[in-house]
């Protein structure tokens, strides 16, 4: 039988909610018993996408950040959405070290971190409408445990 669970969360585009978003996703993912490294990968990726929504999507304007999270067996699927200003050139935005806010000391490494730490990252954006980042990761730890259990 498939193991499935999903949740949605919506919160204000305030920087103090970045840590909150990490805790929420980490708590939801905890049911899969991830390794410390897997959990760190997911928390870091969430942090990057949520920060981007707040500082690039909404800039100084107040708005809502939406996270949708789904677990199907050992696969975690996360969507981070904002209704902010959108990205005009997604390809350029995803380049390592590219940032539109160097004066804010942004490193331009957000998308690179997500791509390195998750199995798959897709970005959809419409200028003036907002951005959705979709990420997927398979927890190998869980798969390994299951295989062990089968071999016993």
């Amino acid at each position, binding site marked *: 039988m498939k193991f499935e669970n999903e949740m949605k969360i919506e919160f204000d585009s305030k920087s103090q909610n970045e840590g909150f978003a990490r805790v929420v996703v980490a708590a939801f993912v905890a049911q899969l018993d991830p390794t410390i*490294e897997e959990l*760190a990968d997911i928390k*870091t990726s969430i*942090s990057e996408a949520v*920060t981007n929504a*707040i500082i690039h999507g909404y800039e100084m304007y107040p708005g809502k950040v939406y996270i949708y999270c789904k677990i199907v067996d050992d696969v975690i699927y996360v969507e981070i959405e904002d209704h902010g200003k959108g990205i005009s050139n997604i390809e350029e935005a995803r380049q390592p070290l590219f940032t539109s806010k160097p004066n804010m000391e942004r490193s331009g490494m957000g998308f690179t971190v997500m791509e390195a730490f998750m199995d798959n990252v897709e970005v959809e954006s419409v200028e003036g409408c907002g951005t959705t980042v979709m990420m997927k990761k398979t927890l190998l730890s869980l798969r390994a445990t299951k295989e062990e259990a089968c071999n016993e």
Partner: protein
Amino acid sequence: MSLTYEIKHRNMIVRLDAEIDHHKAEEIRDRLDQLIAMNSIKVLIFDFSNTVFMDSSGIGVIMGRYKKMKQMGGDVGLINVNSNIQRVLKLSGIYRLVKNYESVQDAIKRLV
């Protein structure tokens, strides 16, 4: 903010917060720049022994301080960086400019 620091002969060791993200980064940056200016710091050592989480905002903070310190003829080093944070730092290529050291003594010996 839980940043604590120690200054010896214009070397400053800063023990960073438990979680470094964009929210914390702004505070950390402002506090560091103030401390660097007030104490004419030459070598800045980031101590990550309390830090369990860091995203790419932390890279920005380190890079920013690195540029600043270099301009003033100073330098920057890192100690006690856990493996998850090292993975974030590695991605950015920052290790070509700023290195991990074994200890405060080691860092000061090589950087001063």
